[in-house]
C-alpha cells in the first residue's frame, strides 16, 4: 500500500511538473466534445432519434470512456519506457510487492482520467447536456469510470510488459482500443444497432460502463438507451470484474517478463 502510494505520488509529481502533458491531457477531451459533439449535432438535427435528448448528452459518457482509454494507453507507454530504460529494476530490487509497482502506474493513470472526466462533464454542461441532480450519482459514475480505467490499464500494462518495441505496443493496443470504443453504446444507442453489433456490444465492458454512467449521472437514461437500460447492478459487476481481470493479466505478464 505504501509503495503504491509512493509510486503514484511520483508519477503525479512528474505529471504536474510537465506543462505540455497537462495541457494535452486537458485540451484533448474538450476538443472531442466540442468538435465531435457539434459536428454530430448538426447532422442529427439537434436531438437523438427516438429520444428528446440532445446528442451531446448522449455522447458525453462516451467521451469520458474514450479519454480513459487514451489515458490507459499513455500509462502503458510510461510503463514500457520505464521497463526499457531499466527504471523498473530500481523498483524490483526494493522490498515492495510486485503488484504495487503496477498499481502505482494504474492508479496515477486513473487519477488523470478523473480530471479529464470532470472537465468533460463541465464542457458538456456548457454545451447543454442534461446531468442528473444527484451528486452521489456523479460520484458513483466517477468510480465506475475509475474501475473501467483500471481494467484497460491492466490490458495496456500487460501488452507493455510483453514487448520491447514501442511501435509494436501501439499497434497491439489499438487492436483492443478500437473495438472497445466503437463496438459499444458509446457513440450510438444499442437499440439502433444491427443484431451482430448489439451482441458484440453486450460482451464489451465499455457498454456496461457507459450504461451505468448514463443511469447515475444523467437524466432520463431510458430515453438515452433507446429502450430499457441494463440493470445497474450488472454494470457494476461487469466493470469490477473487468478491473480485476485486467490487473490480473498485467500481473501475470509482468511476472513472466522478470523471470
Amino acid at each position, binding site marked *: 500500500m505504501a509503495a503504491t502510494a*509512493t509510486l503514484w505520488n*511520483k508519477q503525479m509529481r512528474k505529471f504536474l511538473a510537465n506543462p505540455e502533458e497537462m495541457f494535452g491531457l486537458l485540451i484533448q477531451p474538450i476538443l472531442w466534445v466540442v468538435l465531435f459533439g457539434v459536428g454530430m449535432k448538426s447532422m442529427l438535427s439537434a436531438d437523438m432519434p427516438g429520444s428528446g435528448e440532445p446528442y451531446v448528452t448522449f455522447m458525453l459518457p462516451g467521451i469520458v470512456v474514450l479519454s480513459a482509454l487514451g489515458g490507459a494507453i499513455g500509462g502503458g507507454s510510461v510503463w514500457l519506457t520505464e521497463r526499457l530504460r531499466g527504471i523498473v*529494476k530500481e523498483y524490483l530490487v526494493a522490498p515492495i510487492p510486485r503488484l504495487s509497482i503496477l498499481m502505482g502506474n494504474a492508479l496515477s493513470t486513473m487519477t488523470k482520467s478523473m480530471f479529464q472526466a470532470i472537465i468533460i462533464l463541465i464542457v458538456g454542461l456548457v454545451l447543454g447536456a442534461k446531468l442528473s441532480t444527484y451528486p452521489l450519482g456523479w460520484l458513483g459514475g466517477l468510480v465506475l469510470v475509475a474501475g473501467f480505467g483500471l481494467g484497460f490499464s491492466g490490458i495496456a500494462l500487460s501488452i507493455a510488459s510483453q514487448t520491447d518495441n514501442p511501435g509494436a505496443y501501439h499497434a497491439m493496443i489499438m487492436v483492443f482500443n478500437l473495438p472497445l470504443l466503437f463496438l459499444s453504446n458509446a457513440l450510438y444507442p444499442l437499440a439502433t444497432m444491427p443484431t451482430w453489433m448489439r451482441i458484440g456490444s453486450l460482451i464489451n465492458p465499455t457498454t456496461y460502463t457507459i450504461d451505468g454512467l448514463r443511469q447515475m449521472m444523467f437524466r432520463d437514461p431510458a430515453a438515452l438507451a433507446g429502450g430499457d437500460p441494463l440493470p445497474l447492478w450488472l454494470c457494476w459487476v461487469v466493470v469490477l470484474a473487468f478491473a480485476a481481470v485486467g490487473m490480473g493479466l498485467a500481473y501475470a505478464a509482468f511476472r513472466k517478463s*522478470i*523471470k
Partner: protein
Amino acid sequence: MNARSDNGPAIEARGLVKRYGDEVVAVDGVDLSIPANRIYGLLGPNGAGKTTTISILTTLLEPTAGEARVLGLDVVKQAGDVRQRVGVTFQEMVLDDELTGRQVLDYHGRLYRMDKAERKAKTKELLALVELEEAAERKAKTYSGGMKRRLELARALMTTPEVLFLDEPTLGLDPQTRARIWDYLRALKEEGGMTLLLTTHYMDEAEELADTVGIIDRGKLVAEGTPQALIEEMGADTIHVIGEGDREAFVENVSALPFVQAVDVGRRVIQVGVDSGSKRLVEIIAQATDSAFAIQDITVAKPSLGDVFLKYTGRRLRDTDSTQTQHRMLLMS
C-alpha cells in the same frame, strides 16, 4: 552496522547456474564466499556472466540451479529481507531523470519506508558525500554522466545497506571521476564497514580497489585470490616477446627452460614468466635464435592483473573478437 547474527560470509553462492532455454548458459556453476567488510572484484569480459551473477545475488533473477545467500539470507526464499538490506547500482544508467537529484533520493527512501526526518537527513548527508549539493534541485537529465553515476551511488547508499552491489560502477567515466568514485567506495568499506561486490572489466579498477579478485569467463569462475597473489603466480617478471618465425618451436624451447614459470601465448604477444627479467633476457633471446624465431620487440615488465587475466581467459579484456582460437600453454611452477 553489520548486524549479523553469525560470522559467516556476507555473500555466498554454491553451484550457481542460470540457463536461458536449452542453449544459453549465462552462469555455469559459480561458487563464491565473500567475508564481511571486503571489496570483491568480479572481473571478466563482456558476456562472461558478471551481470547475471549480480542479478541473482540482488534477487532480480532466480537461479536455474544452485543457491546463494546474502547476509545469511536465501536470495530466493528470503528475497524480501535481502532487498531490505542491500544496495545496488546497475550497469546501465537507471535514473528517472525527470526528477531532481533530491527527489530521486527521496523517492528511493520512501520505497524502503524510511520516515521523513530520516530521508531528509540521509539525503543531505549523501548529496554532500557525492558532491551534488549544488545540483540537487535540478532535474537529473541536466546532469553529466559522472554526476548521474554519483547520484546513482548516493541512491544505493540511501538505505544504509550492509552489502553494496555495483555493476561496472565507473563504466564510461573520465579518469578523474573514476578516481573519485574509488575513493568513495574505499571509504564505505573502511569507515562504513560495508561489504562490496563490484564487477568491472577495468584491470586498474580491480587492482586498485579489490581485496579479492575473481576472474569469471564463460559463466565459470576460473581464478580467485588477492590481486597480489594472482600476480605473483605469473612469475616475478614477465618478458613480452613479439616476433616472426617458428612460434611453436620457440614456445616449446622456452617452456623447457628451468627458470621459466609460465608461458602464455596470445595472438601477437608471447608472455614468459621468469624469476628475474633482466637476468634472463639474454637466454630468452638465445632461444629465439635457436628456434628460427626473429624477435621484433622484447620488453621486461612486472606482471599485472591484465597478464593474469590473459592467462586464465586466453583473451585480453578489451578483445572484441571472442571467437578467436588461441593456442595456450600453462606451466605452473
